[in-house]
């Protein structure tokens, strides 16, 4: 039943702001109150500033009531202090998940609610702390907001504010104005901002930009507008198409290598193979990229076209990542590139006249030092107690390196020059041996246990990071590989390995994996008994 104020008597306009603590929900509420009062409305607002203020989710609630109506009635209206599901005219959400929360709490209803939502993501701690990708499904949430709101105004209001040096409350205010959900003219909003004074120019600019975008959103009509989450984390990034055009104008050696891709690999993996090849060239040299293609082609020959060459796809990606393992040489190389300094300048928003110095935090341990030495030397450092101890004495503390000053820069630069002897280093030899073992397993099982081989390929994601993180990941990887022989004998082996992999990524204490492993060693026995 649509709400009819003429029939049922006057009502307040109800407005809920669903925000995170510290996002300026209070400022926004203040603006709306001032504007409403200026436009002949009585305004009431409340909030719950307790601990929610410290980054938690919170709701500000406003009711606006035409003063004229109160005068006519001869008494003030009784205004509520919290939103009631189904009774909210306008919901302003300062972040996509908070828009979803307002929907899930029933504050957004198709018969009346205008939902003004910023589509950007402020990730919650559970999403950020995941050992892989723990982000919530933004698309589903966005669809829910569209399905439940009468009118939806949705775009990245944070980015639109930051683009002009303002904060999100200004663009939320602009989007509110542009939505036309309140019976106030644009001037009333802008006059309110002007009264505030601080950061006026930036605020007005953010307001105006959001106003225009919201107008466009509304004109596209409620359900026609097609906003998309501004920063989704797609699982497939924009892979550049593998094209021989890449090779044009390049030395013959490069051309020959790129020609190998269409000649030796199925089309399904061309894009990934180009990326992988590029990575290996960047990491070491052309010969190293050749080794990558040799290894990949071997797997592709064993692969199954009927399965869409899935295995080659997985190996193309994981092999490239493994072959470009992060050793000291690689890190020093990446840290000293000009493009990296430019990126950091942009990242920290340095103005052209400002000077930026970077400091790196390195904590090489005996292990990393041995890794970067020629293998025999590396073994000696690790295996001779007194040398180990002596080198360890220098590694007690982390080092800070000033990579934009000459000493630090040349230190890193000379480390990166060790690339020439990388093939002789201890780490190289160990990693190549591991890679070979991993590939051998895959090749061994590709014919008989395709799904299991696929899962083995995917398990490489466990091996990442540095120091303890790397050691933990490698340990988990080895445990899983140790279980492969047992899994081979089971029909659900591939599914079980996928579960083990998920368990290894569930926590960094190894608890989930421990439990899963224990369950696994129990279950076959049970099978035998029955």
């Amino acid at each position, binding site marked *: *039943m649509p709400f009819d104020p003429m029939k049922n008597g006057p009502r307040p306009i109800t407005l809920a702001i669903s925000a995170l603590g510290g996002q300026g929900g209070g400022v926004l509420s203040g603006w709306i109150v001032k504007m409403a009062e200026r436009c002949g409305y009585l305004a009431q*607002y409340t909030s719950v500033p307790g601990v929610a203020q410290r980054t938690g989710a919170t709701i500000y609630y406003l009711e606006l009531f035409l003063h004229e109506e109160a005068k006519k009635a001869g008494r003030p209206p009784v205004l509520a202090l919290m939103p009631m599901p189904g009774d909210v005219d306008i919901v302003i959400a300062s972040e996509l998940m908070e828009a979803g929360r307002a929907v899930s709490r029933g504050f957004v209803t198709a018969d009346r609610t205008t939902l003004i939502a910023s589509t950007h993501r402020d990730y919650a701690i559970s999403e950020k702390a995941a050992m892989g990708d723990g982000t919530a499904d933004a698309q589903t949430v966005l669809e829910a907001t569209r399905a439940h709101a009468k009118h939806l105004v949705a775009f990245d209001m944070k980015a639109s504010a930051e683009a002009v040096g303002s904060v999100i409350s200004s663009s939320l205010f602009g989007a509110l104005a542009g939505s036309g959900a309140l019976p106030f003219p644009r001037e009333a909003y802008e006059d309110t901002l002007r009264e505030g004074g601080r950061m006026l120019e930036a605020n007005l600019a953010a307001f105006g930009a959001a106003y225009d975008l919201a107008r466009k959103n509304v004109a596209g009509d409620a359900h026609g507008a097609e906003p998309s989450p501004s920063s989704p984390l797609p699982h497939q*990034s924009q892979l550049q198409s593998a094209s021989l055009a890449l090779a044009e104008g390049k030395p013959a050696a490069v051309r020959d290598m790129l020609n190998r891709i269409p000649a030796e690999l199925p089309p399904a993996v061309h894009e990934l193979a180009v990326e992988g090849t590029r990575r290996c060239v960047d990491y070491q040299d052309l010969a190293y990229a050749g080794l990558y293609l040799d290894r990949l082609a071997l797997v592709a020959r064993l692969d199954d076209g009927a399965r869409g060459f899935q295995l080659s796809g997985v190996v193309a990606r994981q092999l490239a990542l493994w072959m470009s393992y992060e050793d000291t040489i690689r890190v020093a190389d990446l840290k000293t590139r000009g493009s990296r300094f430019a990126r950091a300048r942009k990242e920290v928003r340095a103005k052209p006249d400002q000077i930026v110095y970077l400091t790196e935090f390195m904590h090489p341990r005996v292990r990393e030092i041995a890794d970067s030495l020629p293998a025999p030397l590396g073994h000696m450092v690790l295996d001779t107690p007194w040398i180990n101890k002596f080198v360890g004495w220098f590694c007690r503390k982390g080092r*800070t390196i000033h990579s934009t000053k000459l000493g630090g820069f040349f230190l890193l630069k000379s480390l990166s020059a060790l690339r020439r002897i990388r093939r002789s280093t201890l780490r190289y030899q160990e990693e190549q041996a591991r890679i070979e073992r991993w590939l051998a397993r895959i090749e061994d099982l590709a014919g008989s246990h395709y799904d299991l081989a696929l899962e083995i390929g995917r398990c490489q994601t466990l091996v990442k990071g540095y120091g303890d993180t790397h050691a933990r990941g490698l340990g988990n990887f080895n445990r899983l590989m140790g279980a492969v022989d047992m899994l081979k004998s089971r029909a659900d082996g591939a599914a079980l390995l996928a579960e083990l992999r998920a368990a290894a990524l569930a926590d960094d204490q190894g608890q989930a994996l421990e439990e899963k492993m224990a369950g696994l060693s129990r279950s076959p026995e049970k099978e035998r008994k029955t």
Partner: protein
Amino acid sequence: MAERSFAKEVETLRIGDGEIFHGEGILAVTKALLQSGVSYVGGYQGAPISHLMDVLADAEPLMRELGIHFEASASEASAAAMLAASVNYPLRGAVTWKSTVGTNVASDALANVSSGGVTGGALVIIGEDYGEGSSIMQERSHAFAMKSQMWLLDPRPNLTSIVDMVELGFQLSEASNTPVMLELRIRTCHVYGSFTAKDNRAATFSLRDAMENPVRDTGRIVLPPANFSHEQEKVTKRWPAAIDFIKSRRMNEFLGAATGDVGIIVQGGLYNNLIRALEVEGLSDIFGKARLPIYVLNVTYPLITEEIVGFCADKKAVLLIEEGQPDYIEQAVNSILRKQDLETRIVGKDVLPMAGEYTGAVLRAGIAAFIKAHGESLGAAGSLGHNLPKQPDSPALDDLNALLPPRPAGFCTGCPERPVFSAMKLLEREMGPFHVSCDIGCHLFSILPPFNIGNTTMGYGLGWAGASAFNTQSDKRTISVMGDGGFWHNGLSSGVGNAVFNKNDNVLLIVDNNYAAATGGQDILSSRGKRESKSTGHSIQSAVRGVGVTWLKTVGSYDVAKMRDTLRDALTTPEKGPKVIVAEGECMLNRQRRENPLLAKKLKSGERLVRTRFGIDPDSCTGDHSCIRLSGCPSLTIRENPDPLREDPVAAVDNSCVGCGLCGEVAHAAVLCPSFYRADVIQNPGRWDRFMAKMRARIIQWVDRRSEKGRSRHAF
């Protein structure tokens, strides 16, 4: 320096008779105190009355003009004891705190002042932290009113009613020689509205008059035989006097329809949400013209038998709306009706939930159930108000809810307390988990992700006392945590003194961030800032030493490695006795508030300034997010991996970074990852800066161009 300044708003407290006051509930309360001629005001901060304390502090100059003494009390107990000034003298005074936790602390003094009774009006303003957003146990202050026999006001949540109740509260207190509690719910404290003001007035009898002409009446002191006569006095004199006053001044209100065979009794504070629920059910208009009678309890204790009997006598059924449990009012009303042999059916917790907040939706459902069972005389609903359709239960919304990530509160960006727990986390990896006894304060966020540290919390300042049982021979020591706020509140005696006396062999970690930060950054004894009306700068260390602790270490809280090593030392040292570590680092919120305006000014004037911020190189970040699990800083976030081969999001530092340095410290201490970098941005660089930068850049760029040439030869 508090989190929010009300300096501008308090100027509006000067307005006089007939002018319209616009502002928040807490400001209205302050104005009401000034209009009531109070002589002294005290209190202890805590949501939802933290801002009231901040308003009072900012209004200190104005109060001084009126001869009012304001005190930021050391604890709720100190505040309650302040009311002793009203025992012998016709002095009006008000104190305030967060309830029920603050009332727990204050109850010793409250019981004493209630027993002896008061001459001047004594008002306790309690911020009831109940329902959404609350961080404390869900209990009712009502029980305290009943046990000590103080009167409890629960005004309708509009500024006019609140201000009226403050003024009437003082009069009621004086008429019945009893302290009065005024309960304000959290949203009411922060509700913005308006009321018609009166002139402020100074008390005719001053504190100075009392100090220079002391009065002594042993009959007012809780000692036998007076304590026995107090109890008699409560029931024979003060109670009847209160009933008379409440009745004659019509403190409770009869609203809605004049007659009807069903009605509603409601706590004043719930009135507005009740009207909205009635309105959407088609039983009232927006102005509260309901189709059934409503008896509003602006005084929820004591109940007025005659009013209840009068309201219920002609009714078949009455809906009693009372939030929280136990259902004290429902029990009392039933008892009153039974004694009067009235058959009126009281419907309360049978259609409304026994426990939990009475939100609009909850009230609406309760009303609908009540009307369905007893409201046939009201006919078809819908002739009034909005008559909103029922919300269908949508299973899709449950699915959506399951998808949404929870948002627990956490440490702010750059918080100096976070590194302390990063250090504990690292130590846990080494030595296994510990029993950690927590306290109240921001540091309690350690129990939430990503730290997940902490076993119990027993109350403000009680962190160490909460672990006092574990004082026996063991291979592992316990760690207790206490904030500087809790330390001065009572932790010095209940925790540190207790541990020294009982030869405790465990470890206490005191987080000293210079303020009572959790409640909004109020100053305390050990604050470093200078305040005209307060004496600060008293170190925690000397207090700890003063009560007899010999093993005492101080660590800068951002030094993760040192904190870890010091904690390890405390946990393993053969030395017996209490071990105390003080982690020092100023609350970043407050520091920023203090420094940012100054920095902006310097920047504008062209002064050389270095801004520090952290960043992460996306090409060397492997997406494991260990750094986030060890820090949890809001500015440390994730974003799409720019690498086409990698699938997990990379860690990133956003622009809210304040450059506290924890990221680098953790990367070092935990041997994490070389992706972090610190950027020192020189703003307004000087001539030498520019020369050096140019020279360095030239050399580095020359080298880079050569490397780039090599790289690009085979790149595609």
